[in-house]
């Protein structure tokens, strides 16, 4: 005998511990079962695209930090690459190597937060989160050594980096690299076969490769479906065609796969940094000669990178003035949310949080 039930609307967010910022979902529930959700965003909208039109090309770089503030370096880099493409600036090789190293360090830092907070969403009371923060702290220390900042680095410049690396950076990075694989092994030992974690995430929030591609989903979420699409391989930028690395893919596109893909990507990032360190030219410029009042020729350019969260691109339009005519940011986090509604329907409230957490979004990038 079925009990007569009535659906009710539960407002999750914008102030809720598990929405990774100020995301809001209007969820229609039948008891514990999610019937439907409607994402409501815009609580962190600062009009960054409009602000860009009031700034010089270089002056916009600090604002890109505020997009996906978990991985500011990647944002800096993607924007600089777009402007370099537009202005035809050639980046020195040493700067390119350093960019690769920094981008991969940023990937490690981002995935540590992503997986840590994902496990927090699963209800693991902060232990994995703090374990992973312990290592993220080391990456952030290294970034502080480079830029003096711990969150919004503002380190990349059009044509290279803002300054050369300090002498103590490379030995410190070396020490970090030596330890990191052991730390990843530790997480694996603790979490890979944790019975409760498997029960909570295996088969939950499945998305197929076709659906993911149709929804413009990219990054680890797309790769977890088993579809190997990584811009570092598909459309190599910087020097990524020189390095040996694998693209980890999942089996069926569930939350567990997304978690595992991120874990494996950290290992691959360590591998890439090792190779880049080996080939890094010890001397040389880290910035191309770019005029201070850069005014690229009229036209438009799009450059995209495989940021930790997925395809991050900047579409920059220039009218030959010192300010960009229009900057469009391809928001990875926003587009990865497209399929959220399909993914969570029919699951429980608890799964809604887990699936949302496994997508790994940053509200700074969703709302811009």
């Amino acid at each position, binding site marked *: 005998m079925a009990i007569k039930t009535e659906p*009710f609307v*539960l407002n999750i967010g914008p102030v*809720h*511990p*598990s929405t990774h910022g100020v995301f809001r979902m209007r969820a229609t529930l*039948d*008891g*514990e*079962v*999610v*019937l*439907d959700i409607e994402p409501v965003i815009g609580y962190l909208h600062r009009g960054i695209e409009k602000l860009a039109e009031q700034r010089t090309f270089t002056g916009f770089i600090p604002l890109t930090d505020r997009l996906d503030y978990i991985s500011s370096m990647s944002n800096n880099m993607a924007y600089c690459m777009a402007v370099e493409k537009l202005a035809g600036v050639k980046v020195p090789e040493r700067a390119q190597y350093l960019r690769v190293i920094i981008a991969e360090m940023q990937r490690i830092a981002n995935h540590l937060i992503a997986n840590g907070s994902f*496990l*927090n*969403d*699963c*209800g*693991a*009371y*902060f*232990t994995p989160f*703090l*374990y992973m923060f*312990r290592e993220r702290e080391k990456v952030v220390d290294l970034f502080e050594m480079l830029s003096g900042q711990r969150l919004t680095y503002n380190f990349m410049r059009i044509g290279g980096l803002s300054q050369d690396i300090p002498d103590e950076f490379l030995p410190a990075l070396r020490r970090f690299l030596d330890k990191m694989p052991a730390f990843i092994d530790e997480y694996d030992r603790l979490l890979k076969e*944790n019975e*409760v*974690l498997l*029960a*909570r995430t295996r*088969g*939950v929030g499945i998305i197929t490769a076709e659906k993911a591609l149709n929804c413009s989903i990219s990054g680890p979420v797309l790769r977890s479906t088993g579809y190997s699409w990584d811009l570092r391989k598909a459309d190599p930028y910087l020097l990524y065609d020189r390095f040996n690395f694998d693209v980890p893919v999942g089996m069926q596109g569930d939350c567990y796969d997304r978690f595992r893909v991120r874990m494996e990507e950290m290992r691959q990032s360590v591998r890439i940094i090792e190779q880049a360190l080996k080939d890094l030219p010890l001397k040389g410029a880290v910035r191309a000669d770019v005029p201070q009042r850069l005014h690229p020729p009229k036209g438009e350019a799009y450059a995209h990178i495989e940021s930790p969260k997925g395809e991050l691109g900047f579409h920059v339009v220039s009218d030959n003035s010192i300010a960009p005519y229009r900057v469009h940011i391809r928001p990875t986090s926003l587009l990865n949310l497209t399929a959220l509604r399909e993914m969570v*329907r*029919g*699951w*429980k*409230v*608890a*799964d*809604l*949080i887990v699936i949302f957490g496994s997508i790994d979004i940053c509200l700074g990038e969703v709302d811009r």
Partner: protein
Amino acid sequence: MMMPDFGTGARIALAPLPPDWPGGFWWHWLFFTVLVLAFVLSMVMGVIYIERRVLARMQSRLGPNRTGPFGLLQAVADAVKVLIKENIVPAAADKVVHWLAPVVAFAPVVMVFAVVPFANGALLADLNIGILYVVAVSSIASVGIFMAGWGSSNKYALLGGMRDVASIVSYEIPLVLAILGVVLVAGSLSLNDIVQAQQNIPFILVQPLGFLLFFTAACAEINRSPFDLLEADSELTAGFHTEYSGMKFAMFYLVEYAEALAVSAVVATLFLGGWQGPVLPPWLWFLGKVFFVFLVMVWVRATMPRVRIDQLMAFAWKCLFPLALLNLLLTAAEVALWPGAMPLIVIPINFAIAGLLIIIWSKFFKLGWGRVEV
């Protein structure tokens, strides 16, 4: 000696008082009432401190270490803080229920300690149905929690309250069945007698499966991690006490830890030999065992993610319930086979059977049912 009169047919006999207590029944009653209240309130502060420090060490951080020596006064400072905080009652709340809920939740937890022996005979009331009383009284706390969930007129709180009722209803059964095994072996429902029956062997060795079942079910009943669904902070913000603040929130906080303490005490009494132990005084043995059980709970909390509500239900009905029945059957057979004292051979047999059953169940038992078509 005075005897309370409960009417005919329900006459509950009190065990003779230990000789070293001065005065008669009322002095005993007064002394232990004060003792139990003081014990619960001070120990709750103690276990909060222990949990925060131990959890912090397990999570590679320091935990509270600024207030007083080693941060010992942190719990006191927190208590003072919540006392002077504003008490907010939501406009749409059912005021009476909202006010009453913390009291209804708190009282039964303290009542549990009335029958827990701190040393031989050192307990408020040595009821001959002691463990039954514990089971009966401890469930009342969930009424208070559901009142909080319902009376707050908040959807998160309501979801939390409903989860609590669901888990209590399900887990009470394996809990009681696991206790029955101990009762069969000890031959008594009185907690003091159960402790005395563990003179030689603590029941954790005779009842390994029963211990695991009881511990798991008790953790689920008091909503310790990984079964802390009713206040699942990542899903329901704070669950049933979302709308509580100030002292009323502190009461729920107190309930949570007092329940954990009660379960630790009951586990120590039923399975670990209570106050029994060599050299040290009995009450110290008892306290040590309580803390040990509590530390295991903290450890589990630091290790496990949270289960889902359907998995919680499935775990109770498909895993714990049949295992508890089998355990009861097995124990009954053993008791019938060896009346009087059990031979030591029972211990390895029971461990082997427990291991085998757990392996079989973990292989063939499916947790939850996952997605629902909508």
